[in-house]
Structures are given as structure tokens and as C-alpha cells.
């Protein structure tokens, strides 16, 4: 009995956490074996983040115990949890720009000589860690210019430096290229072999099977179960997560591309600092086509889309043609009137107004492009009809159209935003990360709608950081690297690895 308990490095017993009307964690009793990579999967809102928050003591549980190395823990604050060997690597990196890699690693846990930082001793420790776990980090370089995969390694070294034995990684692969993901998995295996335990949080099921020793599934705040990789497969796991059958494959319809809807010639865009972020972009999208842009975050996708929608001013000499007419530099309002739709990546900051009601959010854009009768009024009946149509067609779960949109879940907000843009007879749709951070059910739904939307004759520019999404949906793929667009072939022409190579600036031979 005693031996069996020692086998688990971490155990939670009946962890519960309630928010106002939501049971975020409902009696979660999880056991994590020592020296394993333990995957935790679940849809958004399944309670993964809350559970991790409780383990790191960022969130206080309502009840339940955390048992670490067979000992019941009573953390006083997040620092206390860190001192007990629980290290967390967040999705958004917690690194300070303008500081060196070395400084970022030791910050907060410096070795002291009196009141001064003992840089030499710190340095020795950091170097020892890098050597032991095979990380080659440019310790004296500034954080600013480093690629994402290196930043992630820095985060890992940081938690190791802090003495973590249990490392929690929250969606660590979401910003990496396929090559970067491979590197991360290698690092995870090395960590495991040298005695660490890793909690690997993800909702990408393919990755789970590549590294995990055990898989726990959360759904609606409850632990559905813990499984061995050999007893489940992707399909089964997806069903467990959602609680019903799901298909993770998009059903592309064959399309016959029509007239060019959008033509872009020599498009160049500078950001506020005068740095050229889009360099000589040339492409066109025809009616019925979905053109996908893949790329590592920050390669210029954002600036490209902003220029296309009139939110950013392109450089002189750039030409954007819409249905044959030049529209370079026209305002978003003019684009709306021309029936161009836009689903921004930042759905809370740009895609909706959280302070407003559901119907107010639903009619945005429509009120200008199509409008109501009479033209200068917003009659409640007509607004309600349009909103009801979006809500019905896109299966948005709402109780009352007057409620704040903030009362909806992320997936439902996204469905409403996408639905709003799809329901306005738009000829061209610029769409960024339509399924980021939403659950499998909603992804499936939006994908299907997107494909049908294009097949009805609209042109779609899909910018996504999820390579799988781009590959599944696009008729043609463009890869953006350092502001330049490169040809990623037609649907299914290149493999994931080849596109990954293009995303990193490599060549496909």
C-alpha cells in the first residue's frame, strides 16, 4: 500500500471549484505517476485551466486536497507552490523583452551574495541545467529577436532552474511549427528520462499519442477517466472529450473557381515603427476558392489582412483590386459596403463588444452593408429577425437576445461572429483563426459552414496559425515567412513537414 502511494508524484482528491453559475471543477480526483508524461485533454471550458490554476495555487479551490509525494499540501501562495517543485509554462510566454535570456531565467530566484545577485553562481547553475538537459541557449542574447521555439526552451530552463519536479505545460505546441513541436517532444522525453514528471495540456489529439504515457480526459468540470494510450485512439478520445461522436475531418467539396474576386499586386505594408511587415505580396482569390495562409505567428499575416480590409495603409505602389476595381486604401466602411466581411483574430477586442447585447453584436456590419428600412433607423423587429437567423443558422446557444454577449461561452461568441459575417451575402471573407481556442464541436461546425460558404461562390482568405486547419480547408495554400508569401501548393499537394519547412524559411526541393 505504502509503495503504491509513493508511485504517484501528484494526487488530487475531490477538487472542487465553483464560479457564479459554473462548476469549473467538480470532484476531480487525478493521479499522476512519477516519471511520466501525463496528458490532460478536454474542450475549452472543461476545467483544465482551473485545475492547473489550483495546482499552482493561482486559483484557490473551494474544497479538496492536493497530495504531493504522498504529503498533503497546503500552499499559501503561488510562490509556495513553485518552491514545492511545481513549475508552470504558460501558453503566453512570461518573458521580459529588453533583457537577456540569462536574466529572464534567474529573475525572482536569484542566488544572493548579501543583497547583491551572485551572477557567477547563477550562471553556473543555469549552464549546468542546459548541459544536463541538452538545451543550447544563447544566454547573453536579448529575448526580443529570438524565435518562439527558443523562447519556449527558455521557459523550460526557467522552471528547471526554479527546481521544478513537476512541470505543467499549457498548450505548448500551439505556437510551434511541426519541426519545433518535434524538438519540444524530444526535450520532454529527455526531461522524463532524467526523473521529471510532465503534465501536458492540449486539445490536439494527434500530439497526445506521440509523447504521453497516460491520458486524462476532462469534460464539463469532471474527470471522465485516465487511459493508457494503447486502450484508446484519436476518435475515441475525441468522443470522450465531447461526449458524442465527432468527425475531425473536414469534408471539402469540389469547387470550380470562378472570376477573380481579390487581386493583390506588389502589396507592401509598414508597421507603426516603419518596419516593412508585408513584402511584395502577389496573389489572387477566385470566387468559390478558399486560400489559406499558413505561417508562424507574427510573420506579417496580421498586417496583410489589415491592409486588405483598410485598417492599415499600404505603401505607395501597392494595388488591391476587388472584383476588378481598385480599392487600395479604402476604409473598412467602404469595404463593408462592397460586401467584404472580416472575422478578426482578436474576437473580444475587435470581433465583438462585450458591453453590448447579443443583437447589437449581431447586426454590426450588416447595419451598414445591408441596413434596415427606413435606412437611418434600426427597427427592433428587423434587428431581432436578423439576429435570430444568425443564432439559428449557426447554432449559437443563447437564452435572450438582450443579454450581454459576455454571457456566452467563447465558442458561442465565435459562432455568432462568424455567423454574422456569413449571413450578409458577403462576396469576400477575410477570416483569421476562426476556430482558435474553441471546442471540437464548434470547430467542426464552423469548418463545415466555411466550406459551404465558399462553394456557394464566395471567396475566402483564411489566415490561421493552426496548420492543420489551413491544410484541411484550403484549395490553395500560401505560406508567409518574414513578410513574404510563398507558394504552398494546392490542397494536399505538400506534406505537413514540407509546409513546416516553408514556415521556417526553408526550401522544398
Amino acid at each position, binding site marked *: 500500500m505504502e509503495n503504491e502511494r509513493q508511485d504517484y508524484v501528484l494526487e488530487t482528491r475531490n477538487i472542487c471549484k465553483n464560479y457564479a453559475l459554473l462548476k469549473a471543477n467538480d470532484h476531480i480526483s487525478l493521479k499522476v505517476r512519477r516519471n511520466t508524461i501525463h496528458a490532460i485533454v478536454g474542450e475549452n471550458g472543461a476545467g483544465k485551466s482551473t485545475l492547473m490554476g489550483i495546482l499552482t495555487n493561482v486559483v484557490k479551490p*473551494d474544497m479538496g486536497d492536493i497530495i504531493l509525494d504522498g504529503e498533503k499540501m497546503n500552499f499559501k501562495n503561488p510562490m509556495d507552490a513553485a518552491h514545492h517543485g511545481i513549475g508552470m509554462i504558460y501558453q503566453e510566454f512570461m518573458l521580459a523583452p529588453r533583457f537577456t535570456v540569462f536574466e529572464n531565467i534567474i529573475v525572482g530566484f536569484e542566488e544572493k551574495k548579501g543583497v547583491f545577485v551572485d551572477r557567477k553562481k547563477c550562471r553556473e547553475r543555469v549552464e549546468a541545467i542546459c548541459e544536463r538537459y541538452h538545451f543550447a541557449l544563447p544566454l547573453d542574447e536579448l529575448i526580443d529577436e529570438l524565435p518562439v521555439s527558443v523562447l519556449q526552451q527558455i521557459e523550460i530552463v526557467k522552471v528547471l532552474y526554479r527546481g521544478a519536479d513537476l512541470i505543467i505545460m499549457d498548450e505548448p505546441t500551439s505556437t510551434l511549427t511541426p519541426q519545433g513541436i518535434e524538438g519540444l517532444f524530444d526535450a520532454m522525453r529527455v526531461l522524463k528520462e532524467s526523473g521529471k514528471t510532465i503534465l501536458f495540456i492540449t486539445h490536439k489529439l494527434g500530439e497526445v499519442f506521440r509523447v504521453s504515457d497516460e491520458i486524462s480526459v476532462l469534460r464539463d468540470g469532471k474527470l471522465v477517466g485516465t487511459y493508457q494510450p494503447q486502450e484508446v485512439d484519436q476518435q475515441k478520445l475525441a468522443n470522450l472529450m465531447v461526449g458524442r461522436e465527432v468527425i475531425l475531418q473536414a469534408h471539402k467539396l469540389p469547387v470550380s473557381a470562378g472570376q477573380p474576386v481579390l487581386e493583390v499586386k506588389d502589396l507592401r505594408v509598414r508597421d507603426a515603427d516603419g518596419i516593412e511587415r508585408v513584402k511584395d505580396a502577389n496573389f489572387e482569390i477566385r470566387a468559390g476558392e478558399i486560400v489559406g495562409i499558413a505561417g508562424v505567428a507574427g510573420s506579417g499575416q496580421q498586417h496583410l489582412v489589415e491592409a486588405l480590409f483598410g485598417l492599415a495603409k499600404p505603401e505607395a505602389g501597392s494595388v488591391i483590386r476587388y472584383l476588378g476595381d481598385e480599392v487600395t486604401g479604402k476604409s473598412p*466602411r467602404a469595404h463593408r459596403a462592397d460586401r467584404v466581411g472580416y472575422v478578426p483574430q482578436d474576437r473580444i477586442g475587435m470581433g*465583438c463588444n462585450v*458591453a453590448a447585447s447579443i443583437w447589437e453584436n449581431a447586426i*454590426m*456590419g450588416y447595419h451598414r452593408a445591408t441596413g434596415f428600412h427606413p435606412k437611418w433607423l434600426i427597427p427592433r423587429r428587423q434587428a431581432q429577425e436578423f439576429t*435570430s437567423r444568425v443564432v439559428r443558422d449557426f447554432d449559437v446557444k*443563447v437564452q*435572450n437576445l438582450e443579454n*450581454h454577449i459576455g454571457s456566452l461561452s467563447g465558442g458561442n461568441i465565435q459562432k455568432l461572429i462568424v455567423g454574422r459575417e456569413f449571413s450578409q451575402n458577403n462576396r469576400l471573407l477575410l477570416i483569421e483563426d476562426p476556430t482558435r481556442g474553441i471546442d471540437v464541436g464548434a470547430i467542426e461546425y464552423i469548418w463545415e459552414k466555411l466550406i459551404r460558404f465558399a462553394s456557394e461562390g464566395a471567396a475566402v482568405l483564411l489566415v490561421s496559425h493552426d496548420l492543420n486547419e489551413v491544410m484541411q480547408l484550403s484549395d490553395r495554400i500560401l505560406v508567409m515567412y518574414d513578410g513574404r508569401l510563398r507558394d504552398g501548393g494546392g490542397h494536399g499537394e505538400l506534406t505537413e513537414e514540407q509546409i513546416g519547412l516553408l514556415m521556417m524559411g526553408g526550401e522544398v526541393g
Partner: protein
Amino acid sequence: MKKLRFTLSEDGKISLMKYGLSLVATLAVGAVMILLQGENPAAAFVEIFRGAFGSRAAIGNTLHWAVPCMLVGSAALVAFKSGVMNLGLEGQLYLGGFVAGCAGYMVSLPPVLHPLFCLLAGGLAGMLWAMLPAFLKLLFKVDEVITTLLLNYVAIFFTELLTLLVISGAKALGTNSIMTPLIHDSAKLTPLIPGTSATTGIFVAVAVVLCVYLLYRYTLTGYELKQVGENLKFARVGGVNANKMFIIIFLVSGFIAGLCGSAETIGVNNRFISRFSSNLGWDGVMITRVASNSPLGVLVVSLIWAAFKAGALHMERTTTLNRYIINLLQALFVLFISIDYGMLYRKYLGWRARKKMVEEEARKLEN
């Protein structure tokens, strides 16, 4: 198909709680203050009420004060609802007052037309004055908080200077105030209740509030104004011309503030008197804050504000209390209203759910 309709949401409950709790808290703290000064709070509140509604004259006084409160409250609402910090209501009000005063004695028009002409002229003056910060913002990106605030001082001295120019430096007999000559009788707002200070200005004020209400509830412009205020990026992406909205906000807000100054000039003082406004512009900011930027709320809150103003003088006459205690009560009310009750309510719900769950656990363990 499930039928979806508009009904009152949970926000209604929170609003109710917000006003109820704020009122109780204000009265409680106010009562302590009055007690500390050796007066009976209940008696003081009764005197305020009497001063506001106790007689025909009292009701007249309340209606008389309601006019500037509603107007300046609406002016502030238009700006603040759209996220524009127009702190220059005071200045816009002075310009309106001055121009209305001039229009009142320089021009001769038949009775009904004359006051309307004065109001319109005053409103336009306030509007022109508000264009200054609007253009400074659009052309040079100067923050409107700074420009509107400082232009208040400019407006006060500027109207004083203009008044001196108009009256050629001569002061009105027997006073130290700088003022324009009396306006013609044809320009005065007609008394509403004979023998009291209530005028037909109240109709103008209510009409303006109703217009603002209709603007936000039913028009495309009102919808866009609201979205610009609540999330500028969202509005831009949705095709709203934000710069145009910004100008509209300043023009409308300035126009209504100008109206307020005009109404004071032709309805109360019968002439423009420099420094006539007892910080009315700031009352507007408080009123719209208390009304949570709701036009109908402004109507109600303005009446309360006016009742306080009318009651304060009466209370001062009949008790030993100073009328400034009313300003204190008003400020306290604003303070309590500004608490985020929605957040408190959600916390309460969470606490209740947790308590219930722990109790259930305990019961399970016992069994």
C-alpha cells in the same frame, strides 16, 4: 423553432440593487453627518422634501432647477456614452448663455419665435465652441480631456471680455457684476405656474431628453455612437466612420450644453451675467454618471437633483444646516453608484454556490 424575444435581462436586477443600495447608503452616511452637526436627520430630510415639493412655489422651484439639470445631463450623456471625455460643458454653456443674452436684447421678434431664436443661437454657439477641441483632437491628436477642461477657463474670461465689449465697458447700475442689458420681454420664457419660477423651459428640456432617448434607441447613428463608445475597434471593423462620429458627438454635446446656457439666460436671469453658472457643467457629469448613461435615467436623476437644489435653500432657512450638505449628499450618491454591483452580485452567487456545495458534502459524509 424556439422563439426568441427581447425581455428584461438580469441587468435589470443588478440596476435595481445598485440604486436601492446606493440610496440607503447615502441616506445612512448623510444622517450621520447631520447628526454630527447636532440636527435631527429626519427633520432635515423632511425640510428638504418640503422645499422641493411642499408648496406650489416649491414645485415651481424644482421644475425651474430641473431645466438646466436635464439639459446639461443630456449634453454630458451624449459625450460620455460614446467614450468622449467632454469636460468642457461649463465653457460651452457660457458661450451659449452669452449669445442667447445678446440675441435677447439686440433682436426684435414676436414672442414665441424670439425665445426659440435665442435658444437656437445659444445652442449653435455652444456647438462652435465644442468644435475647437474636436478639431484639435482630430488634427493634432490633443487629448480632449486637457483641451475641454482648459477651454472652460478661456470661455469664462472670453464671455466676460465680450460682455465688456458689448456694453462698452460700462457696468450695470448698482452692481459689481459684468452683465449684458436686460433682454426684451418677448424673448423671455413664459412662466409655467404663475407666481413661481417655473417656465416653459421645462418642455424644451424634456423634449431634448426624449430626442436623445430616441436617438440611441432607434437610430442607426445612435447605435454607432454607442458602439464607438464601448469598443472603438469593433465599431471600426464593423464599418463605422469613427472620426465622423467623434465630430458628431462633440457637436451634439456642445449644442445641448449651449441650450442649457441659453435657457438659464432667457428663463432665469433675463440677461447674461458673467460667472452665472454655479458649476452646472459638473452637475451634468454627475447626473449622467448616476443615470448610468441612460437617457430616461437622466430625466429621473435630473428631477432628483433639482429637488435637492430647491430643497437645500429651504432646509438652510429652517434648520441650522448649511445647504452645502446637499452637495455632499449628491457626491456620496455618485460615489456609491460607482461601485461595481454586478461584480459583487456575481461574487455573492459564487459564495452561495460554494456554501451550498460544502453543506451537501457534509450531509453526504454524515450519511
